[in-house]
């Protein structure tokens, strides 16, 4: 195995255990890992933004357009998106960067307004169509679902009816303009029961999700505790535990002594 792979595993195991040290309490090891994580994320995002978006989609095409306009031949020929229209995103991108210059940072609002206005306008018709109408349709019809047998027809139709009742009941629960009394109060309470089942299901699934992530980490730590990786997990576990004990000793010894009662 290449040396860089072994070093990588030791670093990964060490950082994993440093993050897990939070289970004891917040400590300098966890804080170190947390800030290192933020720094690496920012650096990665910066590299990605340049190499995968700004350079191939803006800088390189515009450069090629400028070269082509001067009459020089370029290989490969200009693509469909490589036109002078790229000046528009260039303009808004430069405006966005004015955010770093306090005197003219107000110019960046034009870029934000462009993004938000376009996004909002685009989303309204699609959201109405996909999330409102397409969801209302199966709630209201078909009312009788024909299954393969009489039993499945009865079950499917009853389920469809229960879904319709449930949607109305939950929507009514959130309608606070009407007082939840009498019939309305009863229907709203039915809505609560539907929501409790849904949230219980969500809770059960959430437990599964979080434990699955923990299982994946434990699988990796176990793999890294093998001889192949020079018992990385075990040695680093002892080291982290030792450091936590040391921090605790330092914390206790640096506490001011309690004054004796007179």
């Amino acid at each position: 195995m290449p040396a860089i792979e072994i070093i990588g595993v030791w670093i990964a195991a060490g950082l994993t255990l440093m993050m897990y040290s939070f289970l004891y309490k917040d400590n300098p090891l966890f804080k170190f890992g947390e800030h290192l994580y933020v720094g690496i994320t920012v650096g990665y995002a910066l590299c990605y933004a340049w190499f995968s978006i700004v350079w191939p989609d803006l800088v390189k095409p515009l450069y090629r357009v400028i070269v082509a306009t001067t009459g020089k031949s370029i290989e490969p020929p200009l693509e469909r998106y490589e036109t002078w229209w790229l000046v528009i995103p260039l303009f808004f991108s430069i405006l966005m960067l004015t955010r770093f210059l306090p005197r003219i940072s107000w110019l960046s609002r034009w870029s934000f307004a462009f993004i938000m206005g376009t996004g909002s306008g685009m989303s309204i018709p699609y959201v109405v169509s996909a999330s409102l109408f397409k969801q209302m349709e199966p709630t209201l019809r078909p009312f009788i679902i024909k299954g393969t047998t009489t039993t499945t027809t009865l079950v499917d139709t009853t389920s469809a009816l229960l879904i319709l009742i449930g949607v109305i009941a939950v929507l009514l629960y959130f309608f606070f303009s009407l007082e939840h009394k009498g019939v309305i109060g009863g229907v709203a309470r039915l809505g609560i029961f539907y929501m409790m089942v849904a949230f219980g299901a969500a809770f059960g699934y959430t437990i599964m999700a979080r434990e699955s992530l923990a299982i994946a980490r434990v699988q990796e730590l176990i793999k890294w505790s093998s001889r192949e990786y020079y018992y990385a997990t075990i040695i680093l576990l002892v080291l982290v535990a030792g450091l936590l004990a040391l921090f605790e000793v330092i914390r206790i010894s640096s506490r001011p002594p309690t004054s004796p009662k007179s």
Partner: protein
Amino acid sequence: MIAFVMGILFIIQFFVPHQWSQDMLTWVTKWLSIIGGVTLLVGAGSLIHIHYAKIKRRVAGWGYSGVMFFGLILSLSAGITPALIILFAPAQGNQSFLGIEGINTVPGVEPGGPLDWVFMKMFNPMSATMFSILGFFMASAAFRAFRARSLEATLLLVAAVLIMLGQTPLGGMLWSGIPDIMAWLLAVPNTAAKRAIIFGVVLGSIATSLRIIFGIERSYLGGGKE
């Protein structure tokens, strides 16, 4: 004004099948993608500014901001150095580094490069571990807080327990009906409740979009003078 014009334009665009309308959609979505990339740079710049200010003012915990900068410089140099080697010193390219040939000439975010190594060996484990810690805290919370105090809470608890059993093979082994009950719970009451919530969210998002278009909602522009 810009938000209003673009917003109305693209609401109308949805209903216009003409080629100009479709071309406008194509080009503007491409431009948004490019501006989004620059926005990443702006976001990163803001974070750098905050931590730099912490170090400058020597506030409590400023040392950790130094750790943040260390991580930043590490990942930036891992991404940029190979590109510089390719540009200025291509002869230095295919050297072996700690067992891997030519790693110093894989620029940017390409797999097999130094930045990819930093991502897989440092970012990956820390990110995964942070979220997995919740698994432990959920168990503690389940013991302390999950009480059947009322009918509603009991209903929630029963649904949660059935789902937890049904999501593993053990549920089907204990009783063949558990997977079917779980499927029904998800397909009927859960669907009904979540659908009603979707309606509420959608109506809210339409209202917010209209507020942005008509200039009533301006918090996204940030504070400060015009």
